[in-house]
């Protein structure tokens, strides 16, 4: 499966959960959402070889005033 996050991309084998895939690419599951083939899914979903997975960063920052 192909996983993208911002301007990065990885190829990982299917059969693992989205949560494991997030950890595998070195990200924090609390800090991203998983969009699989265009649909938002929870991180217990088991991904397959054909899946296109986009990880969406949820952390924004700065002065925290307007986000």
């Amino acid at each position, binding site marked *: 499966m192909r996983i993208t996050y911002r301007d990065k991309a990885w190829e990982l084998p299917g059969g693992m959960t989205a949560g494991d895939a997030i950890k595998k690419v070195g990200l924090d599951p609390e800090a991203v959402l998983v969009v699989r083939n265009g649909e938002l899914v929870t991180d217990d979903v088991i991904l397959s070889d054909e899946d296109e997975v986009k990880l969406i960063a949820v952390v924004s920052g700065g002065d925290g005033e307007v*986000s």
Partner: protein
Amino acid sequence: MRCRRCSKPAVINMRQHKLALCGEHFLGWIPAQTQRFIKKYEMFDPGETILVAVSGGKDSLSLWDLLLSLGYEARGLYIDLGISEEGYSSSSLAKVDRFVEKREGARLKVVDVKEVYGKSIPQLARERPEQKTCSLCGLVKRYIMNETALEEGAVLATGHNLDDEAAVLLQNVLHWQTGYLLRQAPVLPSTHPRLAQKAKPFFRFYERETAAYAILRGIDYIYEECPFATGATTIFYKELLNRLEGRSRGAKLQFYLSFLRAREKGFFLRMLPFGPERIPSVNEGLELGECERCGQPTTAPGLCAFCRLWKVAEAEVG
């Protein structure tokens, strides 16, 4: 994982609530919870005008979308900071414009900092390398937000979520900023005629929930972070809190709600000249005067921090 309400596949698992929901039920849950918090914390009434400060990001656009869908007279305020680095300001304004185009009757006011005050935020920041850009930008935004809310006769609403609030709380605790701790709240009532009421209707939602709302509602928000926010302290504290949350479900929520309870019980009052018998309202304990130049409330003698900033900037131009 299945939706707790209907058994369809869940799109989000809110571990702190032990609640997984499908898209349909999540999009019903968020507005219902928001409405409950608005009422419980007396943020504003249905007849009032709300000015939503929008940046083009997920939180503020989601808040505006949600308040409009709940039937509030919610107007938008976009502050053009003039951040040309990576096209940030123009891209974020384009997102806000697109949001407005899709919503009939949505009213947006744009304040261009450079046009109104003569310099953009990056220009100001370059002249003050000793100051953090984010705090300088925050000062300018807070001033303009308050001024515009007063002009519109509106309550100011911002998209702060629980992660924002918990990160600020952690920062305040680490430095034992007791004055800031006393004034950190989901709603800041107007305690001066030149001070607009401020509310944070999303303060109980985790950041991943506001992001999920934006995605499910098809809100096209600016995904890139402000180029000046890279390495910002707030982001570092959020990462720390997320690591804690990963180990202990609900840790962020408990941290913030326990703080609010302690604050309501007067836990921080011993540091202030009130005596233990009564709880002061937000901003009590502060000697609020008026700025000699603009009239906005300030704790400083003479000019407020905003006018001091621009007075120096003008002197540098002259």
